[in-house]
């Protein structure tokens, strides 16, 4: 399975990528939403996109809207991974088309639980 991790923090990209790789994902990274769209436009369409909210150039919400506007990317499951924890922000992200929402700080267990809920925990990844 493929995952695209989009976050402007290199440290956070490495943390999330490390967790997903541990579950068996093939992972690519992008530093903001526009870079993430570039990856999709190049034909590398992931099963899962983990997206931060506050980023330069293109924020997470704009990325979610852009992905949802393209029917060719309908199968991409989007999980917001962000420090934005206000209820109104969560509702906005879900209304725009995100499937799940993980608030920073998080644990690997929290990511694993969300993936299990989404049916995106690869076979062999321990629960």
């Amino acid at each position, binding site marked *: 399975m493929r995952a695209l991790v989009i976050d*402007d*923090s*290199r*440290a*956070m990209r*490495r*943390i999330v990528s*490390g967790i997903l790789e541990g579950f068996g994902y093939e992972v690519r990274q992008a530093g903001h939403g526009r870079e993430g769209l570039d990856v999709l436009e190049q034909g590398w369409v992931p099963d899962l996109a983990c997206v931060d909210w*506050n*980023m*330069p150039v293109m924020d997470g919400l704009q990325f979610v809207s852009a992905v949802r506007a393209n029917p060719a990317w309908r199968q991409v499951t989007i999980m917001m991974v*962000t*420090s*934005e*924890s*206000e209820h*109104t922000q969560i509702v906005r992200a879900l209304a725009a088309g995100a499937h799940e929402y993980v*608030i*920073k*700080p*998080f*644990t690997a267990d929290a990511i694993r639980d969300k993936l299990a809920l989404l049916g995106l925990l690869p076979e062999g990844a321990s629960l």
Partner: protein
Amino acid sequence: MYQEQWLFSAPADTGERRRRSDAAPLLAELLDEATVQGIADEAWLALVGEAEVLVPLPGEPVTDPISSWVEIVGPWNGAVVLTCDRTTAEELARCLLREHAPDVLDPEDVDDALGELANVIGGNVKAVLPGPSVLGLPAVGAAPAPGGPTDTCRIDVLWRGRPLTVSVQGPAGA
């Protein structure tokens, strides 16, 4: 006739009530040190390491300080600032990067890690302040000047015996 009576009986509008309600809330009424400590503790456990604790004790003044911060704009305006010395910042970056940390850290990695810690703490501080608010992107450098004592909530802690501060602070001069 009714309108005329109402006009005569209504108190004169001096604007005082509007000014009172429009005034930005004071941080001391919204947040306390225990809340900030709890948010920082949680960020440390999740990002820095499961065995990493912030001991609520002030240390020696930080020499060679470096700060990271995020601004909050909303009913309350200010910044959440994390300050430590550069050696501590490098150690924090190594903890965040874990096995991905290179032998020699790039200064950008240090800034990035410190900025992300401020971002995570700031996002959770924003959640307990009145909203809606907007969180800015992390910045790293010399800390912005703090606001007055009633508009600052600061914790002094020790991490691995090294001093570190987390300050939620209104703008200077406000």
